[in-house]
């Protein structure tokens, strides 16, 4: 009997077949048609969440005792470039948040102006797309109040957040810049704020100073840091990669409620 060589042959054939199958999987995963099909589940997920779940439900708020001592910072930890360093050096005294696009009254607000606007403080859980969570306390201006002050034009459907950090140094032009977008359901949600404080102190640079978005019912990458300009748009197809955000342009879901 030649059972051992045969077994070896079988094992060889088996692992070759497995290798082919796995390589096949990767090829399937890279296929544009397959990617487009898989991406359709996002529409179903968003429709189901918006249909079944309350649109105004508040994310769970925690107590000061729950605050994570080790809240992790992700993405850019300090934007490069002289302009941002100058802002940091002056403690953002000359910084202005521009609110424009499809609004009746464009605004230009200093940190002091923002602090004078309707505010909210909340202790919430930050869920990273990678799988980890940290709990922090945020104080910031309510986005709904700012948008009411600027008065959205009727055709405005999305709010886009343009940021100071270039997260992809190799991408051309504005494609490497961080940006995010949310729709009006989330923009006018009670817990959606532009945070200038974290855990009772000024927002640290690594967490997005001077201003970061908190959109509590979505994953961490929606919470744009280093927000410089807010733009109301009808569509975000013309911005950078056209998918509504830095990570969205790189294959992540625009609706990050899951």
């Amino acid at each position, binding site marked *: 009997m030649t059972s051992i060589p045969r077994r070896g042959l079988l094992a060889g054939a088996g692992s070759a077949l*497995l290798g082919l199958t*796995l*390589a096949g*999987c*990767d090829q399937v*995963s*890279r296929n544009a048609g397959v*990617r487009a*099909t*898989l*991406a*359709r*589940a*996002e529409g*179903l*997920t968003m429709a189901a*969440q918006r249909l*079944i*779940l*309350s649109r105004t*439900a*508040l*994310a*769970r708020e*925690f107590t000061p005792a*729950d605050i*994570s001592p*080790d809240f*992790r910072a992700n993405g850019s930890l300090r934007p490069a470039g002289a302009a941002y360093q100058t802002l940091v050096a002056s403690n953002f005294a000359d910084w202005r948040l521009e609110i424009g696009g499809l609004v009746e009254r464009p605004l230009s607000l200093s940190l002091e102006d923002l602090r004078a606007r309707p505010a909210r403080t909340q202790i919430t*859980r930050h*869920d*990273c*797309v*990678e*799988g*980890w*969570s*940290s*709990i922090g306390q945020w104080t910031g201006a309510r986005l709904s109040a700012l948008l009411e002050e600027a008065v959205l034009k009727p055709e405005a459907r999305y709010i886009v957040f343009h940021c100071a950090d270039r997260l992809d140094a190799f991408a051309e032009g504005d494609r490497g810049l961080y940006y995010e977008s949310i729709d009006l359901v989330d923009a006018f949600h009670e817990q959606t704020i532009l945070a200038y404080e974290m855990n009772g102190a000024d927002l640290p640079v690594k967490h997005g100073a001077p201003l970061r978005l908190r959109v*509590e*019912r*979505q*994953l961490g990458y929606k919470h744009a840091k280093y927000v410089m300009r807010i733009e109301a748009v009808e569509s975000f197809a013309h911005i950078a990669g056209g998918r509504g955000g830095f*990570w969205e342009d*790189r*294959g*992540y*879901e625009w609706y*990050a*409620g*899951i």
Partner: protein
Amino acid sequence: MDDPIKPARTRPRHSLLVRLTHWVNALVLLVLLGSGLQIFNAHPALYWGHASTFAEPWVAMTAEPKGPGLAGYTQVGGLKVETTGLLGLSDGERRGFPAWATLPGYRSLAEGRRWHFFFAWLFVFNGLAYLAWGLASGHFRRDLAPRRAELSPGHLGREIRDHLALRFPHGRYNALQKLVYLAVIFGLLPLMVLSGLGMSPGVNAAWPWTFELFGGRQSARTIHFLSALAIVTFVLVHIAMVLASGPLRQLRAMITGGETPPPVPGAHL
């Protein structure tokens, strides 16, 4: 058939819907496992509670310097073992699970999520079709609900001895099989969906019980992982049982439906 008074009803051993949903589920679970491990690899550590305690994970897969190079390690609770080649470090790359276990094989959290959520929907639709049919057709009551006599210690003891001796009664589910199938169908698989929803910030906001049920989002993630491990264990034992009890006959039955099961002794109980 040629009995003029009472024609014998030929019912296949596995109905068409059971066969269809079985194979769809098999494929779907395989994709969910591979894409789930891809997602896990984005942060190969597990915690209990609401938030991550980065310095003290419950489970962690890491790559650390050893001699001139790196070695992969897996830590579970207070136990830490070297797992180079499998967990923590494989093919010279820092990664939780190795390339052959993840979908896609190369590192891509975005693509892993796309696969996972698309197939999660398929899993839910397929599961609901099976549950609806199982209830409506009497499949659960007739084929899976154990009879009282089957649950007696004597009977269960005999079945355990039969299993250990690899003696399997043909055609019908035995009581151990029924209990395990019921636990998987009504326990493990729904737990998979629930612990998955327990990680969704959108679902968490509207239905806080989805994470409170587990004691927090990080606990839900840990339970999701452990449930997946339990399903893998079930599938491996399931396949082993098929191999031990006449694989060709069993496979044929799950594809073509198979022959009508013989009458059950003591079915009148």
